[in-house]
C-alpha cells in the first residue's frame, strides 16, 4: 500500500471511531457516563489555555523521568553484575523470577506509605518499574550469550574486559534495548497510578479528581493525553531502536535467505 493511501485509511478509521462515539453517546447511551468527543475537546482546550494541563504534565513527566533514569541505571548495573557471575546467577535465579512475578502496581500503596504523597513516591514507583524490567532483560540478555562468538573472540585475542565490552554487551544489546524501551511507558503508568492513590497534582491526580466529580469529559481527556504521550514515546523509541540495532536482520530479510 502506498504511504498516502495508508495514511488516508488510518485517518478515515480514526474519524469513524470519533464519529461513532459522538453519534452513540447521547441518543443511545447516556453521555453523562461516556462523555462525547466534543465535550472532551472543549475540556482539553480549557485546561490547555489555563495552563493546568502543562502544570500537570510537567509534574508527572518529572516523576517519570527521574524514576526512569535511576531505575534504568540500577537495573543495568545489577543485571550485568549478577548475570556475569555464574554461581551468583544460579543462587539468585528463583528470587529474580519471584520478584519479576510481583504485580508491580500492587506495590503503589506501600510506596505511598514509605515515601509520602509528594514527588518522591511517584519517582520511586517509576524507578521500581523501570528497574525490574531493565534488570530482568539485561540479565536474560547476558545469560543468552553466544558461546561460539565468545570463543571466536577469545581466539582472536580478546581478554576478559574486551570480551565484556565487545561481545557480552553488544550480544545482549537487543535485550537491554528492549528493556529500556518497554519500561518507558510502564514508568509513566507507575507514576500515574501512584498519583491516583495519593497526591496533590499531576495527570493521575487530575483524572482521579475528575472521576470523583463525575466529570467524565475530564477523565476521558486524561486517558487521551496519556495515550498520545505513550504513542509519541513509542514512535520515538522505534527510531532509536532501529538505529542501535541496525545490524540485525529484518524479518523480511531472513525469510528470503
Amino acid at each position, binding site marked *: 500500500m502506498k504511504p498516502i493511501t495508508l495514511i488516508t485509511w488510518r485517518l478515515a478509521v480514526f474519524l469513524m471511531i470519533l464519529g461513532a462515539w459522538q453519534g452513540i453517546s447521547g441518543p443511545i447511551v447516556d453521555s453523562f457516563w461516556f462523555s462525547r468527543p466534543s465535550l472532551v475537546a472543549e475540556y482539553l482546550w480549557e485546561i490547555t489555555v489555563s495552563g493546568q494541563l502543562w502544570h500537570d504534565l510537567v509534574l508527572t513527566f518529572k516523576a517519570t523521568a527521574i524514576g526512569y533514569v535511576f531505575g534504568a541505571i540500577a537495573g543495568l548495573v545489577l543485571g550485568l553484575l549478577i548475570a556475569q557471575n555464574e554461581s551468583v546467577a544460579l543462587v539468585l535465579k528463583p528470587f529474580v523470577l519471584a520478584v519479576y512475578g510481583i504485580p508491580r502496581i500492587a506495590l503503589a500503596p506501600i510506596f505511598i506509605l514509605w515515601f509520602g504523597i509528594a514527588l518522591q513516591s511517584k519517582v520511586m514507583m517509576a524507578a521500581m518499574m523501570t528497574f525490574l524490567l531493565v534488570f530482568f532483560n539485561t540479565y536474560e540478555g547476558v545469560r543468552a550469550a553466544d558461546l*561460539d*562468538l565468545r*570463543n*571466536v*573472540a*577469545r*581466539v*582472536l*585475542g*580478546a*581478554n576478559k574486559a*574486551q570480551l565484556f565490552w*565487545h*561481545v557480552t554487551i*553488544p*550480544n545482549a*544489546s537487543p535485550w537491554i534495548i528492549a528493556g529500556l524501551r518497554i519500561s518507558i511507558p510502564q514508568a509513566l503508568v507507575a507514576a500515574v497510578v501512584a498519583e491516583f492513590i495519593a497526591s496533590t497534582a499531576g495527570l493521575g491526580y487530575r483524572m482521579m479528581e475528575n472521576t470523583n466529580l463525575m466529570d467524565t469529559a475530564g477523565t476521558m481527556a486524561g486517558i487521551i493525553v496519556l495515550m498520545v504521550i505513550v504513542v509519541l514515546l513509542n514512535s520515538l523509541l522505534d527510531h532509536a531502536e532501529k538505529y542501535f540495532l*541496525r*545490524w*540485525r*536482520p529484518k524479518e523480511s*530479510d*531472513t525469510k528470503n*535467505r
Partner: protein
Amino acid sequence: MADPVISFRQVSRVFRAQRGDVVALSDLNLDIYEGEFVTVVGPSGCGKSTALNTIVGLLEPSTGEVLFRGKPTVGICHEVGYVTQADNLFPWRTVLENVTFGLEMRGIGNKAERQERGMALLKRVGLEDFHSHYRHELSGGMRQRVNIVRTLAYDPKVILLDEPFGPLDAQTRLQLQDLLLKLWGERRETTLIFITHDLTEAIALADRVVVMTARPGRIREVVKVNLRRPRDIYTIHTDPKFREIYDKVWAHLADEMRQAVA
C-alpha cells in the same frame, strides 16, 4: 626436516557425560611442520574438532600434551588462528570491523592503520565494496571469505580451519579453495590444518592427508600428496596421480566408516 610447529604427544580427551564417558581422542601422536598444509578426514564424531580445540587452547587434553614449537600451550594460544564452520562473524560489527577485530583486541596499530590493513585484505578477496555491510547482508561464500580474512589480518603462524566450506555450494567451494591456496601461496611460512568431509577437497589442498579412525579418534594413516604446486584446483582431480591418492585415502576411510556403524 625442521622442528615441528605443532606436536600432539599421546593426546587423549575424555568427555564426561551422564551415561558414561565418551572418549573423543585417544593416543593421538602427530607432528606438523612449518609451512605445511595438512588436511584431516575421518568419520563424523571422530574427534577432529576436539583435536583443533586442544591446539588453540579452548579445550585441555585429558592426558598427553599439545606442543607449540616444542613448548606446552597454556590457555589460548595467540599464535594460532581459527576459522570455524559455524557462521561466526560478529553480527553487530560491519565487515571491516570484523576483519580488524583481532588487531584491535591485540592493540596492533592505530585505527587508521588497522582499517587500511583490513581494506587491503578485503580488496584481496574482492569484498572491498562490502566493507560496511553487516553479516546478514552477505551470502554464505562472502561470509566465509570475511571469516578467513579476519584470521589472516593478524598473521597467525598456524591457522586451523574446521570445515570452513562445509555449508557452501559446490562451485563456491571450488572458488574458495582456489582463493585459500592463493592466499597461502602469498604467506608460505603459515601452517594450515584443515578439517573436511570432502576427500577431493582434502587431497587437492594438502601436502599430507591425515585419516582418523572412528571414535575414539586416533590416526589411522597419514597419506602424502606429492602433487606439484601451484595446483589448479579446477582440474587437479583429472590427474591420474590424484586418482591414485584418492583411491588410497578412500580405502582407509571407507574401512573406518564401515566400523563406525558395525
